[in-house]
């Protein structure tokens, strides 16, 4: 079940496919304190990778670098082989906060990325309606975010990131604020969607069950300054065990790793 995990995330590239996302010797320091140290990372096209680490270890910083919202102090982040120097408009970024414009309704929130790209109003309204159908928000087009439940707002955020058909999804603990049932629902829906659309996904989470259920590969990070300490392939058996809530070793292995790292952080 546990693959032989090298300490870097490099893999033998037999396929000629360009990895979607690459981190080469990436380091990042914030306010004179090192947050990320020598991160080597490759995310293959179409794969679902989860980043798991203790709180405050720098997972969000890593994701921000992957999104192009920040630049590494050392090393380079490549997207499709090209250095990422500004926010990546080919990637969708979903955070725990909904980040919806409260004064706009659902439809115009979702259509926002197309509005920025100066797409014609009729065209973008049609695209928005299509996405609304996909995420199951039909009937709520003209509601304001304040009138929606947490789960529905999350769908609006998701719809907004999907509408301009990104190739990559970056998720920062997106379902953290939702109740357990809604969370499971959203996880399933998201997984289906990413499979259907062939998206490359990088998910940051501290929910081990979520990571195992959704990801193909899990990357374990240390406490700050974060390094990659282990990479694990998730097998179908692992996922089945999570679904059936059986006692099993992948879960406890990762759990112990987190517990250890949290103690280091103090």
């Amino acid at each position, binding site marked *: 079940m546990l693959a032989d995990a090298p300490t870097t995330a490099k893999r033998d590239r037999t396929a000629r496919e360009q990895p979607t996302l690459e981190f080469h010797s990436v380091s990042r320091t914030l306010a004179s304190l090192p947050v990320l140290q020598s991160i080597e990372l490759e995310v293959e096209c179409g794969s679902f990778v989860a980043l798991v680490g203790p709180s405050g270890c720098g997972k969000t910083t890593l994701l921000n670098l992957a*999104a192009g919202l920040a630049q590494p102090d050392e090393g380079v982040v490549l997207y499709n082989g090209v250095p990422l120097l500004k*926010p990546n*408009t080919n990637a969708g*970024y979903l955070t725990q*906060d909904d*980040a919806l*414009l409260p*004064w706009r309704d659902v439809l115009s929130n979702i259509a*926002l990325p197309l509005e*920025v790209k100066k797409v014609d109003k009729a065209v973008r309204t049609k695209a928005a309606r299509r996405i609304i159908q996909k995420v199951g928000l039909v009937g709520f087009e003209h509601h304001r975010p304040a009138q929606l439940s947490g789960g529905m707002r999350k769908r609006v955020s998701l719809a907004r990131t999907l509408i301009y058909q990104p190739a990559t999804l970056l998720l920062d603990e997106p379902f953290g604020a939702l109740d357990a049932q809604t969370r499971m629902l959203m996880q399933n829906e998201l997984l289906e969607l990413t499979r259907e659309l062939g998206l490359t996904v990088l998910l940051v989470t501290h929910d081990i069950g979520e990571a195992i259920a959704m990801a193909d590969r899990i990357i374990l990070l240390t406490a700050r300054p974060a390094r990659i300490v282990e990479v694990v392939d998730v097998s179908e058996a692992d996922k089945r065990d999570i679904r059936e809530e059986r006692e099993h070793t992948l879960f406890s292995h990762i759990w112990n790793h987190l517990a250890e790292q949290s103690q280091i952080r103090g």
Partner: protein
Amino acid sequence: MGRRNEITRWRRKLAVRLTQFVIVAVLLLAWEFSPAWLLDDFLWSRPSAIYSQTLAWLARGILVGNAAITLECVLQGLLFGGLAGILLGLFAGLRPAAAELINRPIEALFAVPKIALIPLFILWFGIGVYQHVIFTSVVVFFFFFFSVYNGVRSVPVALRNALSMTGASSAQAVHILYLPASLGWMIIALRLAMPYAFVAAVSTEVIASTSGLGNLVKNSASMMNSAGMFSAMFTLLFVSMISSGLVNVLARKNRWNLEQLEE
């Protein structure tokens, strides 16, 4: 039980209004009928005299005319000072490097009693309306600057990031995110600035001018027309309260906008 509470509340309101009425009535009567050795007619006037002076001035359009002049100065000051404050506030909010440079000087300038600047403005712009509007604008500027700056800075990081990811330009970001987000703050600035705009306009009128309610008060006093002085003062109080009241009503109607941002 609810009915009884309603009656008590209604009765309490009545008692309050009655007391207020009595207080005002007693003060007015005391003022009107107090002996000359207590309240010199010449210096203090009487309500009756003030009343007739007010009527005379209303007939000649003096009160309305001067009030209009003062109001015009206030409104223009709000407009120009507001625009300047909003633009600079947006600029400072969006460019933290610039903010570091200009915020401190602006804060320091705000601390200075602006009225001390009036003689300087007179040296520069003379004593006409031009100077009044400029001075009022300067006073108003600060409120809008700080409000919009804070409004921009308080936009949640998640929203800013989300907008960056769509590849929006600065201009688009201002139009789509920062201006609507700052609307609530701008209304707060308007509420705060209104009384100060009035004070600014009246101050310039008192110190050096040839028109406006402030000037009317000063002229009446210097001509020993105490009835006129009070008449003008009460008119000013009235106009100031009405405009502040209007702004408050406008603000309350838009409160939903600010509350929505608290999500």
